[in-house]
């Protein structure tokens, strides 16, 4: 279970402080699908990276499995990110000159998985993401959609319980976005908790129950349960 409590984030710069998130509170239960919707610049991306421990909040906390992650030492947050949190980014964030397989291996290396086992897990993850045929291809030679599928494979390779997706379809065409939706459906049905930050209307086409959190200028506008 994930609990976000009184979360605030202020960016300080020369021109003064900018409040990116103010007083965010919500809970996500296990195996739930949550979509955080808002225009770009509304703070949903920052929220997601605080939830992943990539960024520290100014105040408030994010509790994942009873650990307040902002207070955790780096080693523990990292281990959490490698083992229980998978992340999918808007820009895919793959290492361009490595092969798909090696990219998928990276979280497992942080977890010190022996190479043989790691390779086996990585190939499985690529299979789940339907990109196994490109496993030895260098990432820079893949299309956007293929990259996204490698990114998903990487996010799920260590069997995470939580998947965070930041604008996953922003760089995809309609056809690839559809494929992504199918994948999400498949993973959600496996029992993975999924949080997607997006402003892409395509998620309306999801045939799943999900809770929708609307966010604007760093504040939660509404929370509702949607049955797809």
């Amino acid at each position, binding site marked *: 279970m994930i609990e976000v409590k009184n979360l605030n984030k202020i960016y300080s710069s020369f021109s003064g402080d900018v409040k990116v998130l103010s007083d965010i509170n919500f809970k996500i239960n296990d195996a739930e699908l949550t979509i955080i919707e808002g225009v770009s610049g509304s703070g949903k*991306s920052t929220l997601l*990276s605080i939830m*992943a421990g*990539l*960024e520290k909040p100014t105040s408030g906390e994010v509790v994942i499995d009873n650990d307040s992650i902002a207070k955790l030492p*780096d*080693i523990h*947050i*990292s*281990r*959490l*990110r*490698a*083992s229980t*949190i998978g*992340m999918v*980014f808007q*820009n895919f*964030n*793959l*290492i*361009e*000159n*490595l092969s798909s397989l*090696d990219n998928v*291996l*990276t*979280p*497992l*290396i*942080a*977890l*010190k*998985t*022996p*190479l043989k086992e*790691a390779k086996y897990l990585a190939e499985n993850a690529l299979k789940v993401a339907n990109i196994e045929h490109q496993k030895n291809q260098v990432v820079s030679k893949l299309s956007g959609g293929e990259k996204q599928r490698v990114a998903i494979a*990487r996010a799920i390779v*260590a069997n995470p319980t939580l998947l965070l997706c930041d604008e996953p379809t922003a760089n995809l065409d309609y056809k690839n976005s559809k494929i992504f939706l199918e994948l999400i459906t498949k993973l959600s049905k496996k029992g993975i908790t999924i949080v997607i930050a997006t402003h892409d209307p395509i998620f309306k086409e999801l045939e799943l129950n999900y809770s929708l959190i609307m966010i604007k200028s760093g504040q939660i506008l509404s929370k509702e349960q949607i049955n797809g």
Partner: protein
Amino acid sequence: MLNNSFLHFLALSFFTNKKRFSGILVVSFFILLLLSSTLFISSSIKGSLKKSLNYQPDFIIQNIKAGESFVASSRWREKLLKIHGVIAVNGRVYGRFFLDKKISFLVIGIDFFSKQTNENLDALVNKIDLKEFLSKENMLVGASVKKYLNSHYYKDSYNFLTPKGEFLKLNIYKELPNSSGLVSQDVVITTKDLAKKILGLSSNEVSDFALSVPNPSERENIRVKIESLFFGARVVTKEDINKKIASLYDYKGGVFLILYLIVIFAFSLILYLRYTIATSIERKEIATLRAVGWSIKDVIKLKLLENLTLIFISFSLAIIASYIFVFIFDAPILRAIFLGGDSLSLNLKFKPYIDYGLISTIFIIYLVTYLATTLIPIWRIAISDPKEVLR
């Protein structure tokens, strides 16, 4: 700590980023090549000098006047022979004969009928036909001397102008073999009488005395006895000479080393810049790794190991290359700098002489400066906020 998947990634990151590393690899290779070549040369010279020293007499007795070794009277010989434990007292005749400001020969006079104090000479004398050699005024010359004389149109003889103002014509009997190393490059060997004439010594004078003391535990005692025998006497032992040569070449090596420390300092500045201004691609890569669960510690480990690999590769390449450069190609260019361009002793071949202390010295300078320069920049890259770069 290091499991095989980590090593797999290390290898991948090293070979897929060849371009990023190759510049540093090349620069450090050349710095190390120069450094190890000079140190190889200096230790090789030191090594062959030490080797030739093994054939030297145990003691040399000099007559000191005005702080310099002066000609000694041959009457000392009797007194020296009376000391118990001393054998083979030999009055030696040698000295530098200057042709002009720069060029000089080392003239050595030897007694061809008795055993030589120097085993190199002994072997040499045994090889020549004495009857023929002594029938005329002959000399043996070193390779550099021969070369010099040839280039100055002296084909088979040379006219020495003695300090008394007389000409003394000596025939070149034979060129000395090159095997005797550095010491034999600029020598002229002839009989004692002729050498005394060339050097301007009178018939009862010698340059100094060489003697041997077969029992090593007696040496200190005998040294004391000799020093109290004549007030002007100075005893130089084999060990003293050894020490002097060692410090002379250490000094030369030391000067070069300081120069290289400066170069390495400059190199480390380049490295520092390279790491502080990490490319955006590199930053993004690290941010990506951090995002998928690498800790700061993991990233530091990866970067340190990357650099260590680079250090090992460039180091071993450079050591192999400089071995080839010095001992197979005889270090063109560098040898002239090291030995002095105008010296006659340029004709030698460097004998392979590997000093492990030296190799570890080179390794330590390189390792420490390299790590020291990259350590803090590596940390900076590792702690940079992944969020900032991933946007």
